[in-house]
């Protein structure tokens, strides 16, 4: 065994153990996936193995991590026991780590080459020219376009996917025995994710490197794992081969996780979305909507060009239905959602809501429609004012729009809405930071609901949530849609969610809608080239058996 972890514990301060008696083994060349939801302790486990946690608060009261490497002087070491100087020699050379956020993982003031060469010169005692040659070599291995030129460039010139390639190149440069990858593809688009996963598999085959892959995404796990451990609240609840865990799960938590996958959930309103006639009753109609952001250059700030975030988009959203807007980051889908609500100014075109062109209204006239059109945001952290209680957040819009006679009645109404979204009325007096991500997203939904809207823009509402929470929030949104006859514009990058939730789908690419139509048609018989690429990149995972 390359790495044998037994009874590993990690605590922060006096708090409960974040990692509570975790044991697993990783063999050379194996891909071992650590799966769990946020807060399950999977990332802390990875960081504990390299002892990268803040030493003033984090402690390891017990446990051992025996690491055996033929290229290590001592042969076998316990990572939890060896002195820091020795640990530093192992970090980066024998065990390397890749982090989630490629945007912040590279130092912006050093060139790519400098960052790649430093560990080589440090760990392998290479001189500068040899280190440079090796750096070039690893950049080629991670299929970086124009590697020679990239060496002397700074990180800001690279896209997210390219940065993650550099991170992998950096991790692989010293040819480690074990690579710990902590959600390495979570921040990337699906097409980039597919490329990166393929790259990691290729490098692993060639070098026989073991991979500890930490993720929350079961469909990625299904693609790459040899063996899987499922973590819940600091403990491993189930370990086994990929097929055992994914297709014959024994632990109820694993089963619950699998059932929460959108691809596994029962299709919403099975089949009857062909009933509604098309084009008849469009609640919202976009006509050649354009949102350009001007680019100014030079001393005189001359207007030289536009960034065409939304470019001639025409769409219909039928009353009472769900139109999904899919696309990768930067495709303009979020800007489109905000332009409809006039949160960003539009450059041209029309937004017709129930026949009225919203863009031509004055601010005063628009006020009436602020009640009708609402938005729920992606990030539950930033979408609630941290200084206001839930009650204030919910009742202030009501007061502005004259809902409820007085404050007492408004609080009563707010309590009702809060109950409707699955929270308790006594939570009204709390502040946002006292809630979990899923609960905050429910408050965000409640804030949209207090004004009794007809149309809600859901901007990546479930992207920041764990799968089980995502399933419940999607369920809630569907119930509310039926109960209040709501119409959704559902912005997302997750094709599985689209399949489960939407009636129609529009695919956005570089500010334009390249394809739109009923979900079945677009997802199963895509016509546009880009849609096909997008669908092919989505990790396919269909757990066996009927949904429980």
């Amino acid at each position: 065994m390359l790495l044998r972890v037994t009874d590993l514990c990690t605590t922060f301060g006096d708090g409960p153990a974040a990692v509570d008696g975790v044991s697993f083994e990783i063999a050379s060349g194996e891909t071992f996936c650590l799966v769990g939801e946020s807060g399950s302790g999977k990332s802390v486990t990875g960081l504990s193995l390299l002892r990268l946690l803040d030493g003033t608060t984090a402690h390891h009261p017990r446990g051992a991590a025996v690491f055996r490497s033929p290229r290590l002087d001592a042969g076998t070491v316990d990572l939890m026991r060896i002195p820091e100087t020795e640990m530093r020699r192992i970090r980066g050379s024998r065990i390397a780590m890749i982090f989630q956020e490629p945007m912040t993982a590279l130092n912006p003031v050093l060139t790519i080459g400098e960052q790649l060469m430093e560990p080589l010169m440090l760990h392998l005692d290479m001189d500068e020219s040899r280190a440079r040659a090796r750096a070039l070599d690893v950049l080629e291995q991670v299929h970086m376009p124009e590697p020679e030129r990239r060496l002397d460039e700074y990180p800001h010139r690279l896209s997210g996917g390219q940065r993650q390639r550099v991170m992998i190149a950096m991790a692989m440069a010293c040819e480690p025995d074990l690579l710990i990858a902590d959600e390495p593809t979570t921040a990337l688009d699906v097409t980039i994710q597919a490329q990166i996963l393929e790259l990691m598999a290729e490098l692993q085959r060639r070098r026989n490197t073991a991979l500890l892959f930490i993720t929350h995404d079961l469909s990625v796990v299904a693609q790459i794992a040899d063996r899987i451990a499922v973590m819940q609240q600091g403990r491993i609840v189930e370990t086994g081969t990929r097929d055992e865990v994914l297709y014959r799960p024994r632990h109820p938590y694993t089963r619950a996780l699998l059932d929460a996958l959108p691809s596994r959930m029962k299709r919403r309103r099975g089949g009857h979305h062909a009933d509604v006639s098309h084009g008849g009753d469009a609640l919202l109609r976009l006509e050649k909507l354009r949102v350009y952001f001007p680019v100014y250059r030079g001393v005189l700030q001359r207007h030289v060009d536009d960034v065409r975030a939304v470019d001639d988009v025409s769409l219909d959203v039928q009353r009472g239905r769900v139109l999904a807007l899919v696309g990768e980051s930067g495709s303009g889908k979020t800007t489109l959602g905000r332009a409809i609500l006039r949160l960003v100014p539009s450059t041209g075109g029309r937004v017709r809501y129930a026949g009225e062109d919203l863009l031509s209204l004055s601010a005063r006239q628009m006020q009436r429609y602020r009640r009708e059109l609402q938005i729920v945001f992606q990030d539950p952290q930033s979408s609630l004012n941290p200084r206001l209680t839930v009650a204030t957040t919910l009742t202030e819009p009501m007061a502005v729009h004259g809902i409820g006679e007085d404050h007492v009645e408004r609080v009563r109404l707010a309590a009702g809405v809060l109950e409707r979204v699955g929270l308790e009325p006594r939570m009204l007096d709390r502040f946002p930071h006292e809630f979990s991500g899923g609960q905050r997203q429910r408050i965000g939904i409640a804030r949209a609901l207090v004004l009794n809207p007809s149309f809600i823009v859901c901007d990546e509402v479930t992207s920041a949530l764990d799968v089980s929470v995502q399933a419940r929030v999607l369920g809630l949104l569907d119930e509310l849609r039926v109960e209040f006859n709501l119409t959704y514009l559902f912005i997302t990058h997750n094709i599985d969610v689209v399949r489960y939730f939407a009636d129609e789908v529009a695919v956005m690419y570089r500010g334009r809608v390249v394809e739109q139509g009923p979900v079945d048609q677009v997802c199963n018989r895509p016509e546009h080239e880009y849609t096909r690429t997008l669908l092919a990149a989505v990790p396919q995972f269909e757990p066996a058996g009927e949904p429980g």
Partner: protein
Amino acid sequence: MSETVTGGVTQHDGPESFRAQVVRRTWARLGARIGIAWIAVVALCAVFAPFLANSHPLLMRRGGVWSSPLIEHLTWIDVSLLAAFGGLLVAWWLRRFRRTLPLALAGVTLVVLISYFGVNPPAAVIYEQYRTGLASETIETAVFAPVPFSPTDRSRDRPRSLTAPDAVHLMGTDEDGADVLSRMIHACRIALGIGFVATGIALILGIVYGGIMGFFAGWAEILMMRFLEIFESVPQLFLLLMVVAFFGRNIYLMMVVIGLTSWPGYARYLRAEFLKLRRQDFVQAAQACGLPVTSILFRHMLPNGIAPLLVAASFGIASAILAEAVLSFLGLGVVDEPSWGGMLNQAVGPGGTFAPWLASYPGLAIFLTVFAYNLIGEALRDAIDPHLSRERS
């Protein structure tokens, strides 16, 4: 819905607002406690100055009649400060700042108005009369304040200018023969006043100007930013010198000038905060709900952006105190009224004589006060630093 959402809430004793959190974290630091303690000492000296150092006896019996010249000689400023302090105590005691604050403010304003028109201490003051009276036994009994000298009591009965500290004058006397300790105590008022008033003016200007810049981007912001840069290039000290030269040595004018020249920094801070906040989802949500601009600005953005301003303000108070000290040291400070900087000025006499007690005590007081504000600012900055408060994952 098959689920119940009751768990998951972080467990601690009741909700802790951001304000409570910042206060707790600030108080947890030793530096902050020392700083607050020193400022409290200075503030108490400022409020109770006439009771701590005064030539008028607190109680005296002359010809069988009891009287209190000290209270008779209280000015409207003394009364107002005492009233403000009392109002603050009552509000604190009731522990309901938010509800009692308007009431307390109204009460204090009323007392200030009444005392401004109603309190008329005798214009001519003869400090020596009590000492000579006691000596000639026309005054039978007298109870004095702990320091039995007023700051402007020049001891004409026994001229003692520039004497070193002794048993009578614990910190010596200045060149006019006034007691240094008494002047030190009464100078707390100017030190505190200049800090709070000047910084208060600067804060209000900075918040309004910076808020407008940050919220309404575009041409307005570009123009306002240029104007701000022009304003920033005005050298504060030389402007102060000029104003003093033209309009005389007026402490209130100085406060206003210091306030008027130090707001651009606060405006910049708030503009940066607002530019960041404007893109936050909760501000967008407030706009999507059709909330009025005033509510978005003052309810949703300002409370989230003001924390760094408060930190800057605590440093600003320190620099305002220094500015006044510099002016007084140059001999352009207030006339007659004691100020720490002015006392430093007297340390080196016209004949080249040096009085170390006139340099060390006021110098130490200035140093400690500026240091205390810096300590508080430092602790405040650490307390609101998001990197220190991030949740463990």
